């Protein structure tokens, strides 16, 4: 039970933290793994255990039930959903200033901009349908009828020239090119005005109230982890990732890390000045305006309930 975990004796004086990621170990979690591998968490007084996610792992639910202490929120809609469902969980840092989400289309089909995808079938996963799809509909007038299920298998996309598909800038463009020898047209949503953060650290209110120091320690150690992963020696993290996820390969990790840097996913935007993990009220309000414009959320929703800036410098 959650209560018991929280009061479990600290191993060697370290605070035990179970941290749930939103996907199997990959370069997109490099900062967390680097912090763990380099002992940054331990140096901050934390005994962190990373619980791998997957296509069906629902991090907010795990947090709400107290099964884990901290977790990754993939996109800001998750935070809005938490607020709407009155789940006492908050975002405490945003590791990705730009969401790496992309839409992919086939080359030579006349799709030159996102707006051209109107009427095309678009393959989206479950989380994206309740997330970025809201933004896409609002901005481009897409309709639900275009949505097709994306099972993280590129086959259906490759088989249909009219199709578009979601992806991570760090992952799908590379794998598709490798598999199908076709360079897909890539639209980074963030470059098209999508305001969302990604890879946010979520913390339950109880933990924030009871042990704010631990939360702060985690946020700081993670920020350091990201800096080290991107600009230091990524090998400790890579080794851990490859161990947790034996299906991962080094070439995929390398190209993903390159993309994280070249697109300035982690250290672009506000982070350039304010450091890794930063969030702002302005940005959150912008996010909420987009999300609520389609009627998916009541205008009265108090977005401030969903995040706190108290752990950021």
């Amino acid at each position, binding site marked *: 039970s959650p209560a018991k975990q929280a009061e479990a004796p600290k191993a060697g004086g370290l605070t035990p933290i179970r941290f749930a990621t939103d996907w199997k170990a990959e370069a997109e979690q490099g900062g967390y793994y680097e912090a763990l591998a380099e002992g940054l968490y331990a140096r901050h007084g934390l005994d962190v255990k990373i619980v791998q996610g997957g296509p069906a792992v629902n991090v907010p639910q795990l947090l709400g039930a107290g099964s884990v202490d901290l977790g990754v929120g993939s996109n800001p809609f998750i935070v809005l959903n938490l607020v709407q469902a*009155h789940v006492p969980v908050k975002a405490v840092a945003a590791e990705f200033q730009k969401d790496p989400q992309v839409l992919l289309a086939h080359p030579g089909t006349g799709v030159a901009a996102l707006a051209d995808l109107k009427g095309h079938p678009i393959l989206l996963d479950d989380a994206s349908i309740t997330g970025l799809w809201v933004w896409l509909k609002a901005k481009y007038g897409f*309709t*639900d009828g275009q949505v*097709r299920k994306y099972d993280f298998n590129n086959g259906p996309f490759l*088989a249909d020239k009219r199709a578009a598909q979601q992806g991570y800038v760090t992952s799908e463009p590379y794998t598709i090119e490798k598999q199908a020898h076709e360079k897909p047209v890539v639209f980074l949503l963030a470059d098209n005005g999508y305001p969302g953060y990604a890879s946010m650290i979520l913390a339950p209110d109880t933990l924030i109230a009871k042990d704010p120091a631990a939360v702060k320690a985690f946020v700081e150690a993670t920020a350091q982890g990201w800096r080290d992963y991107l600009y230091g020696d990524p090998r400790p993290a890579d080794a851990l990732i490859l161990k947790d996820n034996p299906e991962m390969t080094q070439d995929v990790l390398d190209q993903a890390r390159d993309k994280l840097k070249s697109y300035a996913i982690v250290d672009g935007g506000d982070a350039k000045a304010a450091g890794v993990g930063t969030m702002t009220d302005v940005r959150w309000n912008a996010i909420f305006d987009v999300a609520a414009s389609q009627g998916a959320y009541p205008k009265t929703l108090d977005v401030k309930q969903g995040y706190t800036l108290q752990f950021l410098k």
Partner: protein
Amino acid sequence: MTRLTRALAPFVLIAVLLAGWEIACRALSVPLYFLPPPLAIAQALAADWKPLLLSAWNTLSMALIALVVASVLAQALALAVGLSPIMERAVRPLAVVLQVTPVVAIAPLVVIWAGLDHAGRAIVALAVVVAFFPIFSGAVTGLKAADPDLELLFDLYGASRLQRLTRLRLPSAVPYLLEGHKVAAGLALIGAVVAEFVAGSGEAQGLAWRILESSHRMQTAEMFAAVLVLGAMGAALHAILEAAERAGLAWWRGR
């Protein structure tokens, strides 16, 4: 009185269970998003009944088509197999492989085959895969359940394989076929839902869409409401098949 008791029994048990659930939720103050109490589910149901019914209809129609297709295919294959023991030994393992093949694994292939513009076909095909086996297995078992003395009689009169199949084994299989369909009906329904999870489109939003949406938005009460509608559909389908089974068996036994 007893008739009333009988008619009310399911409702009484359900009411008792629901009351216990409601009380437990309140007593332990379980958060709504974790496990919603029945009243919250009822509210969600009342608020959303219109889109829910529409989704339910979408799912049900897929499931019914799938059930019919599965029924026809499974029985046809069982009959073909019933004509020759060698065919049976050859086909049966393949049927098992089909049964244990995860829908998620073959969904992309089926989607490719059906084309992205025909999500409905893909859903039906996947639901057929899920519902196929109990009917096939029941048919194969039933085809062998004929009275051995009647089998001797058919030997005696020099019945052809086809005659034996249609005039003896198929009628003998009726009780097993009915049972197989009862199990398959639920599987067709859940198969349609699972298929929509993995191969659905936004065009005809079935219950799976509602369930996933509510689940991701942590609106657990809404999710339970959708599951409840699904359960009610399943129960109704089952009740219809149960009645059909009773009538079928009475016909079969001749009393």
